[in-house]
């Protein structure tokens, strides 16, 4: 299922492409410090939805796993423990 990418995809390069464009248009030199700040900001923008999505995936996984946890355990598995325990007591 292919769907549209989130807008943050445009800043995957950490905002460097955006700064190149601004520099060529205005001719202003932008300090490396500012670039890094802006880059970090873009990373933050990107990280937030990624973290959010990772959280949703784990939530879905836990929900599905909970269903498995609540399935009844077959009797023969419980009985096996009793048999092992009894056998040990006898020996």
């Amino acid at each position, binding site marked *: 299922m292919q*769907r549209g990418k989130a807008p943050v995809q445009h800043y995957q390069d950490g905002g460097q492409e955006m700064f190149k464009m601004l520099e060529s248009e205005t001719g202003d030199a932008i300090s490396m410090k500012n670039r890094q700040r802006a880059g970090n900001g873009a990373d933050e923008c990107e990280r937030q939805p990624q973290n959010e*999505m990772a959280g949703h*995936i784990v939530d879905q996984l836990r929900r*599905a796993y909970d269903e498995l946890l609540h399935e009844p355990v077959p009797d023969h598995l419980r009985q*096996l*423990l009793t048999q092992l*325990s009894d056998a040990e007591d006898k020996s």
Partner: protein
Amino acid sequence: MSSQAVRQGLISFLPNLRAFAIALCGDADRADDLVQDTMLKAWNSLDTFQEGTNLRAWLFTILRNTYFSDCRRRRREVPDDDGEYVAQLCVPPSQHGAVDARDMLKALSMLTDDQREALILVGAEGFAYEEAAAICNCAVGTIKSRVNRARNRLSELLGIEAAQDFGPEPTTEAVLLRASGKAG
């Protein structure tokens, strides 16, 4: 540790061991066999269990080792080199925004073995990265990386590209967008 205490421990962790086994192999019958083998091995190796350490982690270690031994044996018997069998299991979620257990199991089966076990141990069973690393006999960084890759791969397999995908299904979303004049 007394046999009674171990028995109580085994009983209390049975649902977890079974859930882990099903999530690992994707088959309830095979999972029951795995749990049974695990219980027998645990019972027969009680003298190797160090009292005061984590019984749950010990049992999970036995189960995953049993599973991987079984996989190696099965690969020799029934090769699936092309991955055709696994590919058949890949089905997108039946209901948008909700992933049921079956969809999740199918998606999990598409992960690599090491990614799957890392994600289940940390994401579903709630083991700490350190505990999961000890169970899988690898470095903590390796587990972190596997969990991260597994999450990404899972979102790809389930067709989830963004958190918004857990919102309205595409048709509803399109209608809403059109109504608000954002789509042509």
